[in-house]
């Protein structure tokens, strides 16, 4: 039994939620016909020049603040030079020495009985994405086709320190980071569309004769799902241990290796040894000017921090009385869920009941309908009213479910739904009529109540039951008091 620890740092590339590319006006919409979302700038035509999309800077700074990083007064652009057909200028505009975010950390929520973990961040920098190479193996010609729609799309690369200690922890870090980016609406984090891509730097610390020995660092590329990250790290930790036990090579004794994750085979494969890798010849991009990040502007973005998952959990559990568990579940359901929740509460719904509806009926229905919560057919204000009226005893829980089903299929207001399916909420007009009758018949009792003896109302409730045996004593009492005291 060898004692060892897995050491992992992650580089996460996030596509920012901008309408247009980082340095030109082309659309960033996914799924357009190849090479249609292009212009002389992102095609790298001779003489075309980049002009910064300031929205990308705003989103990067919001992310930096949310990750507790420092925002420098000035950030700059550098060129990373290499040849590849999906890189039409022959260089990528990136940031080397003056990234938009320095340092920072992300706290992972502590699971039951665990210490909370703080994962330190090195930096986060902006860069433009490359296009896509499509290698056509079927034609037999070996032709490659290039789609430059993605070329120039803004990416934020978030680099962590090697603070992660297991595959599960790496996955937890990614989940929390993804939630953060989604709640801040910085990125849609759609992994199938490549909006979030992960590279991992991995090695082991092995105990040898009471001494910690670091094994060579390997970079794993092409991790396109959280599951792939988890499996690749598990695989790599076993592979590196076996390699170390076989050859005893330590860090620095072999060149840094880059491996790719083969999802089909569930293994990593060597892509290249670092020694033969390109020298990127970074230098400041002379076509762009340094960006001044005014301190008061940066401060104004701090208002967005209330959208951080940690703050929302705090608000839901602390201020609204949900359990930590429920708060966690709602936050994990994403920003549309929190927006729905908050609007339903504002419409009078009780937090705990709305939370239950969201976690059960609404989630199930949304998934059956294949819609997201911002497109859900029952608007949050309607659900809030329904929940409030169930809470007030106007409808039973079973009636509430029927009303919900009706609202789901037919829309409309709660009242319209109740009428349509013939559920009689206790008829307010009948109750009013009964109470007016009682008030007219018992002037002395009314005087007593106005004089401060509310308990005198009991006499009228007895009388009410003589007129209508089905009258709900509680409601009659409440309505009587309301009518008497308001006049």
């Amino acid at each position, binding site marked *: 039994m060898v004692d060892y620890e897995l050491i992992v740092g992650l580089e996460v590339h996030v596509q920012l939620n901008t309408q247009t590319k980082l340095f030109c006006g082309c659309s960033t919409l996914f799924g357009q016909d190849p090479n249609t979302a292009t212009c002389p700038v992102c095609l790298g*035509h001779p003489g075309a*020049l980049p002009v910064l999309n300031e929205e990308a800077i705003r989103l990067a700074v919001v992310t930096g603040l949310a990750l507790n990083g420092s925002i420098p007064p000035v950030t700059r652009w550098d060129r990373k030079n290499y040849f590849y057909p999906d890189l039409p200028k022959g260089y990528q505009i990136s940031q080397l020495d003056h990234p938009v975010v320095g340092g920072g950390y992300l706290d992972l929520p502590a699971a039951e009985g665990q210490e909370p973990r703080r994962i330190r961040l090195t930096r986060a920098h902006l860069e433009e994405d490359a296009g896509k190479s499509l290698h056509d193996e079927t034609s037999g010609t070996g032709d490659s086709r290039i789609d430059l729609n993605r070329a120039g799309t803004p990416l934020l690369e978030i680099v962590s320190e090697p603070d992660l200690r297991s595959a599960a922890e790496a996955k937890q870090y990614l989940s929390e980071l993804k939630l953060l980016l989604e709640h801040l609406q910085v990125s849609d984090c759609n992994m199938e569309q490549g909006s979030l891509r992960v590279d991992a730097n991995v090695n082991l610390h092995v105990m040898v004769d009471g001494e910690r020995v670091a094994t060579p660092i390997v970079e794993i590329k092409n991790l396109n799902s959280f599951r792939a990250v988890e499996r690749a790290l598990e695989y790599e930790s076993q592979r590196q241990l076996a390699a170390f036990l076989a050859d005893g090579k330590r860090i620095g004794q072999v060149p840094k290796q880059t491996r790719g994750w083969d999802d089909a085979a569930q293994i990593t494969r060597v892509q290249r040894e670092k020694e033969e890798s390109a020298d990127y010849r970074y230098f400041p991009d002379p076509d762009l*000017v340094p960006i001044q990040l005014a301190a008061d502007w940066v401060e104004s973005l701090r208002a967005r921090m209330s959208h951080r998952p940690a703050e929302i959990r705090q608000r839901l559990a602390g201020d609204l009385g949900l359990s930590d568990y429920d708060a966690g579940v709602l936050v994990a359901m994403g920003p549309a869920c929190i927006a729905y929740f908050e609007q339903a509460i504002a419409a009078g719904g009780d937090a705990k009941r709305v939370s239950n509806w969201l976690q059960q009926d609404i989630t199930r229905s949304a998934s059956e309908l294949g819609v997201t919560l911002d497109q859900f057919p029952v608007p949050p204000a309607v659900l809030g009213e329904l929940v409030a009226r169930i809470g007030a005893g106007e409808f039973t829980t079973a009636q509430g479910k029927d009303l919900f089903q009706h609202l789901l299929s037919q829309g409309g207001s709660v009242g319209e739904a109740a009428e349509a399916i013939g559920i009689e909420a206790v008829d307010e007009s009948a109750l009013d009529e009964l109470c007016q009758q009682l008030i007219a018949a018992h002037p002395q009792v009314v005087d007593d109540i106005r004089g401060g003896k509310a308990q005198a109302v009991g006499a009228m409730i007895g009388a009410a039951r003589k007129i209508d045996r089905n009258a709900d004593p509680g409601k009659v009492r409440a309505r009587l008091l309301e009518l008497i005291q308001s006049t």
Partner: protein
Amino acid sequence: MSRTALESRRAFAEGTVTATELVETCLNTIERHDAKLNVFLTVADEQARRQAADLDRRRDAKEPLGPLAGVCVAVKDLISTRDIRTTCGSRILEKYTPVFDATVIDRLKQADAIVVGKTNLDEFGMGSSNENSAYGRVANPWDLDRVTGGSSGGAAAVVAADFVPLSLGTDTGGSIRQPAAFCGVVGLKPTYGSVSRYGMVAYASSLEQIGPMARTAADCRAALDVLAGHDDKDSTCSRTPLKDSSWNQSLKGLRVGWVEEHWTDGISEGIAAALRSTREWLEGQGATFVPVSLPHARYGIAAYYLLASSEASSNLARFDGAHYGLRANVKAEGRSGNGLEQMYSQSREAGLGPEVKRRILLGTFALSAGYAEAFYGKASRVRRAIQQDFLEAFQDVDVILGPTTPTEPFRAGEKVDDPLAMYLADVFTVLANLAGLPAISFPVGFTEHPLPLGAQLIGRPFEDRALLDIVERFQDDTDWHLRRPSSLNS
């Protein structure tokens, strides 16, 4: 002598001449004489005739006319022109036609100027003699066996030979001013950031500017008024407007800097003498001369070639055969083979000339891991030191006068095998590029041969108009700019 740009504009507006006549005269001259000079890489005769006809119609309809209406302009073939081939003097772009106009071309068209064609240059602007063009050298109209200077050699010769009154050049290290001096015309490199670079094919982005070349300073000013101004498409284009000049009436009180370091052994006697008489003329106008020092100027050439080549190695990476331009026909070997690498190297081998390759290699080396600090980094610090030198010098003076070039135009072939000697032709001009300052070259005399001699004035940032005004005063009083070469008379 044919009309200046402003005279053309006036004659056209007054109805003395039609735009069509102006264009036909110009096309006819090109047709008859360009074989001797090799100025035009592409003549845009169709577009020019169409535009002239439209202008004539508009003038007859009494519609408003732009400030350069009817003026024929030749454009250095490094500036993108929509639907007109733009070769950059390179084989690799022999068949490349841009899909967009450079901002300066937009502005010329807005001003109703007529682009008649694209002029020869050193490939991608890299050269000081116009001998580095893939399409042959340009002959100097004053002596066909001599060079025009470069890299805007065609743009200088075309004005000197009276084909057109106005041309656009680009200046990275002297590429407007040095050929202006060699061809006996006025050439202005504007303040960095005053004219949009959008659409100029980049050689060294942080150094270069587009500028006008003409026989008179007044024509250059008219062109600059059209070209200058902020452009949303160029992030390095400034929002600071050019300043008004205080030298449009008299030069009394003008303080002229005289750089001691410029008076080294390398200056030809002819240029030294012409400079002395220019100084006397200025003193006669009430200007005073003040010695100034630019202690880091002697590192200018080294810093310039390191920085310019570094940027070039990156700027020219896009010419790789993958997306446009020349592509070597390499047998596909699939992505597992090295077909891609071969395609890159063979396309660049066939498409790029020796001087371009030399600078790409130099720049790649200067930026590479382990050397970047010693070369690119150090050159950047020299650049800041030179900027500081100028800042201090301009505390005491309004402009700095000196030679544009160390020698008069040399013979074709004389320096092609000695790149370092060729680089020294830029020794006085690169400083303004490194510091981002406006600088103008103007004719101040002739050798007995006769070959033109140029002087250079460097000004404070955004004081381009001051330089133009001083040269205009000089031209009011002298006739060097009125002399024309006789080589094309036969």
